């Protein structure tokens, strides 16, 4: 049987501030199947971003066990983690995090810098831009684009290496409702097209309702999980 996209066992993330210890994640155990579209919801401070950072192999300071496609993250060294982020995981952030000194094309191509094998990054970047409908803006600077366009460029960057998993933290948080809807539609399409696993952290009910599964966090614990076995 294929391993799930993610398997969490008793995941804890504890932040120490002075003498006080705060559990941002407090004992999560769940599987996220491949190809599923999952919405993570919860009040501010409930641990959503913290969870995404752990799933995205950006935060190693957790306790418990996290498997990505059957690989125990704790057993991977920095190189292997880097490779995982580069080729297997795609990130989208609320504030887009495009690099203003690079053109749209170079932004989208930037994952190629950290790929093990060289490839035609410009070609791949144009292809990714076509998927989000922005190939005509390839030579613009990101700061000349609208918010919705910027988030689509960020999506194209996440797609450059065609990763099987997309991790999105409030992808519509900085967008008005119309452009937000465009981005949501795009995410749905990307999910369906290649059976991608998409995990979206969101406040937006509209987006959460489109997901196949909805996980609600409260104080670092699962309060409600529509896909619980």
């Amino acid at each position: 049987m294929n391993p799930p996209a993610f398997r969490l066992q008793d995941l804890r993330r504890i932040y120490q501030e002075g003498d006080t210890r705060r559990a941002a994640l407090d004992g999560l155990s769940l599987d996220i199947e491949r190809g599923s579209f999952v919405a993570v919801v919860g009040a501010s401070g409930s641990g959503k971003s913290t969870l995404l950072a752990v799933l995205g192999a950006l935060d190693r300071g957790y306790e418990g066990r996290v498997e990505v496609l059957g690989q125990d993250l704790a057993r991977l060294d920095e190189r292997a983690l880097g490779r995982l982020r580069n080729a297997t995981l795609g990130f989208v952030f609320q504030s887009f995090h495009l690099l203003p000194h690079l053109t749209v094309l170079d932004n989208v191509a930037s994952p190629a810098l950290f790929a093990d094998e060289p490839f035609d990054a410009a070609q791949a970047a144009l292809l990714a831009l076509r998927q989000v409908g922005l190939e005509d803006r390839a030579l613009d600077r990101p700061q000349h684009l609208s918010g919705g366009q910027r988030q689509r460029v960020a999506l194209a960057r996440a797609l450059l290496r065609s990763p099987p998993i997309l991790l999105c933290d409030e992808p519509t948080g900085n967008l008005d409702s119309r452009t937000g809807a465009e981005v949501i539609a795009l995410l749905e399409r990307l999910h369906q097209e290649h059976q991608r696993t998409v995990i979206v952290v969101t406040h937006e009910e509209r987006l959460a309702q489109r997901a196949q599964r909805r996980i609600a966090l409260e104080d670092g614990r699962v309060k409600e999980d529509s896909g619980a076995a």
Partner: protein
Amino acid sequence: MRASSLGRLVVGELRRSRGALGASGFGILAGTAALVFFLALGLQVRAVLLGQVFPLDRVELEPAAKPEPGLLTLLVGGGRSPAGVKQETVERLGRMPGVSAVFPRLRFAFPSGAFGGAELIGREIGTHEMLAEGLDARLIAPDLEAGLSFEDPLRKPGAACKEDGDCEKEQYCERASGAPEGVCSAPVPVVVSPYLVELFNKGLAPAHGLPPVGKTLIQKARGITFRFQLGVSMMGKARAGAPRSAKARVVGISPNAMDLGATVPIEVVRRWNQEFHGAEAAGSYSSVVLRMERPDQVATVIRMAEAEGLVPRDTRARDVSVLIAGVIGLLALVAGVILVVASSTIAYTFRVLVNERRVEIGVYRSLGATPGDIGAWWLAVAVVVGLAGGGLGGGVARALAWVIDLLAREKLPDFPFKPATFFQFPGWLLAGGAAAGALFALVGAVAGVRQAARLDPAKALLDP
């Protein structure tokens, strides 16, 4: 990360931060320029002083001074053994590893002076105090111009005589004091050191309005003749014999000749020492000069010679060497201070830059960069800044040296041993300057580099 990617990141950062990086690289440039400049100056000064003025590749050894004879020794009547270097010792020294040549020397054991030069420069000049010593002819022969010889003139004695008038034009009557008669002799050949010629030409001659002597002059005039005043000087009279004079002729210049004085064939000195000092240590030399294959062998050879009871006569070379090292060290310290300041500027610049690039670094981490990749990126930026600053610093030092040499050529009067250039820029010095620049840039950047490598990408990227 692939090298091409690293290159792209580094070039991108250099281009974007050229202002800040250029400013901090300028400090490295200034420090390296000072360092390379002072070291180049030191190298040349050292080369001139130790190569020409006080050669470091030779050492003159003489018997260690005996402690003052105690009262007991005087009463018991233990005689002082004649001080001197024996022929066997000279031969043993010559066989020591690292020694390429041995020059036994025999100094005048009596006061002497010298006067002459009238036929050449129009008036009599001289000194009441003349240092002179004898050297084996074989050690001088290779330095002589064709047709001139450095042999004891009495190997080919002339007719018997009572005074100079009895002899042929060039000759003089070599007649020991008290002897009933002497023999006609060619002038005693004398060689002088290049050091002395340099001092005369650039120091004495201009001061007294005399023409300089040179190899060509010696050759043309078939030697400058002068008279040795034997057995008397300003310091007093010799303990034996009656003062008299002997004709001498300069036949050449040799680096083996004594620095300040006249060098004559050793047989002549032996004869005259007997005449004016009495028969003493007939089979020995007053000192021996060893020439080393390499300057760094001097210390070893001195240590071995101590076993023979010999000590270095002259420590000027060592003193000069220590002095130069000290002065250059001090100047290099100044350069070092500039570099340390530059290094702390770099530290500040890198911390600011890394802070400005927090999100960018986080993005790269999320796209697959490892902490090591990020560290390598910033480390490489520091190395480039340091190498560029250090390399340009070396260039600036060279340019400065060129200007100073030009000024020295045109504005400074000629003085003894004035070199054509005051600087030496060997390849290793320029390479070392660039390396020092890179090193100080690295040391400065290290905190910022660590900060960049350890940056928490989750914190930088995820909105709170």
